[in-house]
Structure formats: C-alpha cells, structure tokens
C-alpha cells in the first residue's frame, strides 16, 4: 500500500503534465462527441457484434474510447519520467527490490488509465445530454460497453507502463508503440489467425469494436492480460539489469 500511495502521489504532484494530458484528452473527446452528434441521422442500425446498441450511443462511447491513447501516454509517462528526471534513483533507494516497483507501476498505470476515462465519459455524457438528451437511451448494454472502455483503458495504461519500463525512454516507448500499431500489426494482417491475437486486435476484442474478425471479449481480455504479464516480466528483467548511473 505504501508503494501505491507513493506512486499515486507522484502522479498528482506534477499537475502541469497531468493537466496538459487531461486537456488534450478532453479536447479530442469533445471534438469526437460533437462530430458524432452533428452527423447522427437518428436511424437505427445493427450494433456491435456482442453488444447491440444504437449507432449514436455506440459512436459516442467510441469517442470516449479516444481516451485509450491518453491512457497509453500516461502509462509511458509514469514509467519513464522517473528515468528522465533521475528520480528513479530515489525510488530504488527506498525500494531496492525492483520487481516490486515494476509491479506497482504497472498496477498504477492500469488504475490511472481507467481513471482517465472518467472525465472523458463525464464530458461526453454532459454534452450529449444537453445536445441530444431525448435521443439517448442508456441501458444495460450501454453500461456494459462503457465498462469495456474502462477495462481497455486499464489494460492500455498498464501496457504503456510496461513498454516504458522496457525502453526507459519516453519517446522511445511511444515510437515503439506507434511503429507496432502502424507497421507490424498491419504487416501481420495477412495471417488472420495470428493477427486476431495481436495486442491491438485483442483490445478490439475487449472493446467489442473489432468487427466479425475480432476475438471474443473473454479471449481478448485473456490475451491482453497475457501481453501485460509478458511485457511486465520483460520489464522486470530489464529493470533489474539496468545500471542507474
């Protein structure tokens, strides 16, 4: 619990960084929400593969899912700003068993990633209620869909931490992730049976946004957790071997 408290304090005591990230996230979600509402035709259509819902609500929740990008960036920051500013020395002086630090940071990355969904969701709900409140119909399916966004954000946040801890560099971690998303997953798409289980496709499975080719929610969740565990294990190995000079 001490480490959790310390790691959480590290996040909220650098308000400019967190606020900047939050404002960027809210701006993207606001644009997504406004564009979804303004282009909504009011028609009904088939919903998601597993969670049938109205296109408007589905697209509004998809706008909130933009916060996944920021959950990833926050995860990377949680892992790498300690290396960037040299505070990792102090962290390891207090907690020399480095695997504990890695585990705690991954946990905090998950919590922080999920927490970033809250303001995005609040903004979307308030905007939608004011603008098209009469057309909103939130039921159990929609709540389930929102829960999936929280879960996906937690996984993405944890992945961001794990990748950040492996590279120990902010830009490096972000470049690795984007290169993976843009080039590697695209290049591997021809092997569909493998492709479905790649990290971003597994997250699609968690969100239920991957179309007919996506893995189920359960498989997506399990696969994502395995990726977090594998990258976390790699982060432990690399962090233990890394000299803090």
């Amino acid at each position: 619990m001490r480490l959790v408290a310390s790691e959480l304090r590290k996040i909220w005591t650098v308000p400019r960084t967190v606020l900047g990230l939050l404002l960027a996230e809210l701006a993207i979600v606001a644009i997504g929400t406004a564009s979804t509402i303004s282009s909504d035709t009011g028609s009904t259509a088939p919903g998601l593969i597993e969670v049938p819902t109205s296109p408007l609500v589905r697209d509004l929740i998809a706008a909130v899912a933009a916060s996944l990008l920021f959950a990833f960036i926050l995860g990377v920051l949680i892992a790498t700003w300690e290396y960037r500013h040299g505070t990792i020395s102090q962290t390891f002086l207090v907690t020399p068993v480095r695997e504990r630090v890695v585990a705690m940071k991954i946990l905090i990355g998950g919590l922080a990633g999920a927490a970033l969904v809250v303001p995005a969701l609040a903004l979307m709900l308030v905007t939608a209620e004011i603008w098209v409140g009469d057309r909103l119909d939130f039921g159990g399916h929609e709540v389930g869909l929102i829960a999936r966004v929280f879960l996906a954000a937690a996984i993405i946040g944890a992945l961001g931490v794990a990748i950040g801890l492996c590279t120990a560099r902010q830009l490096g971690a972000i470049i690795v992730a984007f290169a993976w998303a843009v080039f590697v997953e695209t290049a591997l798409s021809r092997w569909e049976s493998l492709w479905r289980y790649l990290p971003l496709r597994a997250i699609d499975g968690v969100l239920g946004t991957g179309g007919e080719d996506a893995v189920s929610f359960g498989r997506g969740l399990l696969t994502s957790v395995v990726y977090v565990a594998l990258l976390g294990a790699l982060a432990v190995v690399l962090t233990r071997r890394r000299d803090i000079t």
Partner: protein
Amino acid sequence: MIEVESLTKRFRKTVAVDNLSFKVRAGAISAFLGPNGAGKTTTLRVVLGLVRPDAGRATVLGKTYRELASPPHEVGAVLEASSFHPGRTGRNHLLTVAAAAGISSARVDETLGLVQLTNDAGRRVGGYSLGMRQRLSLAAALLGDPKVLVLDEPANGLDPQGMRWLRELLRTLAAEGRTILISSHVLAEVEQIADEVVIIHRGRFVEQASTAELFARAGGGIRVRSPQAAQLRSALEGAGLSVSSAEGDLLVLGDGTTAQVGELAAANGLVLHELAAEKSTLEEAFLELTAHETTR
C-alpha cells in the same frame, strides 16, 4: 559498517572500478577521495544497489543494499542534485519518498526544517538553486533517521554559509553515532570534518588512513626567516637538521621542530624575523598519493 570487497565494474571497455576493497569504520566520518573519473560515484552507486558490479560485492550493515529490511531507515543517500522532477514542489518530493518508506508527513516537515528549506518547501524544485537542491537531497537522506549516510559530493553548489552549515550538520550527525561516507573534491572542506580518508585513483585503491596519519606522513616543514641566514644555516646543519631550501633570508627545513630552531637561534645569538611550522594539507597529501599512482 560499509564494506567493499574486490569490487570491479566495467562500462563496456572502460574499467570504472578495478578490484577495489576497503572498509568504512562505524561511527566515523570517512572521506572518499579521488580525482574526477576515479570511480567514486560508481563505487557509491554499487554500495547503494543502483549499479550492478561485474565482480565483488559491497555491503552495508553486513548486507547488500537490496537485502536491507528497511533501507530508508538504515541508509540515507545523497546522489546528484538534479534528481528531482522540476514540476514537483520540494515538500511533495519528500512526501513521495516518505509515502513509500512509511514515514509521516510530520517527519517530512521536521526534516525540511533541519535543512532550512521550510520557507521554500512549497516551491517547485525547477526554481531551486543548486544549493537548495543539495539541501533537499540531504532532507531525503535524513527522512528515515538512518544510521549510515552515503553522500556523493554533498557540498556541490553550496555557498560559504552553506558549506559551514553542512560541516556543522555532518559533525552533529556523526556525534550522534552515525557512520558517514562522503565523497568530495572540496578537499579543504573534507579535511575539516573527516576522521579518515579512503583514496582511489583510476578505480583502484590507493590509500586508507586517518586524516591525522595522512598529514603526519605527508609531513610539513619549518619556515624560518633571519637577517643572518647563513650563520643560522650553519648552526642548524651543525645540529643535524636539514635545510631543504634557502632563498635570501628564508630557510625551509624538512625536519625538526620550531622549538629546536628557536633554541638554536637563541643559543647562537641570531635574530629571527619569522618562525613557523608549515602544516601540510589534505590536498597536498592527496596530490602526492595520486601523482605517485599516476606515474606507476
């Protein structure tokens, strides 16, 4: 208390520390000296578990740093003054450390007072001077009230008042029975507080001795000025004392005491204008020892 045994650390092809061994006595202030690049910081970081040795080991209180049950309560460390998030306030920096170590916020405020940072505790560290950052580093080191302090260049960036404050603080901490290992290149500062000295050069052990022993070994001289320098020289050499240099009315002796010289001059009816024992400094001893190593 702190023990380094056959420690070797390489960074690629560079050997930073080469089969280094020494022990730091409990309850003493030990200065860890060496020229730039001698391997002091690397050694301290191995002691603190931040750098993995290629061979050998370093222990504190009989254990490797990783094995310590509650590190912040056993060992306090000051490393670089730049190891802070610039956007975090000084107090919040200490609170993050305290939270991980299970230390109360009251102790954080107490430590801020101890390093005279109470008034600046709410400011972002990015706006701190180097001296203030050093004080904040010291505060973090002292949070857990540890028995052992490992300080890497703690005087960096301190102004003369700050240096005096640090000296007095370290003396107080040592008087409380703490073991302090301090690396520094400000030798004049170190010689005023250190009980013993460990000198390394190019990653290798050079010398470990008490500061008193080091001064005695490095020796000193006696300066004597007389308008009758030639007669005085004859008298001194006649008494078996060696004059190492003579220039005008000034003689420098390599041995003997001021009392011997004064008595000889009086017995021979010679006038003296100056008679003083020249005390060697730690810097001279250090330069002599490391120069000797360099020529090996």
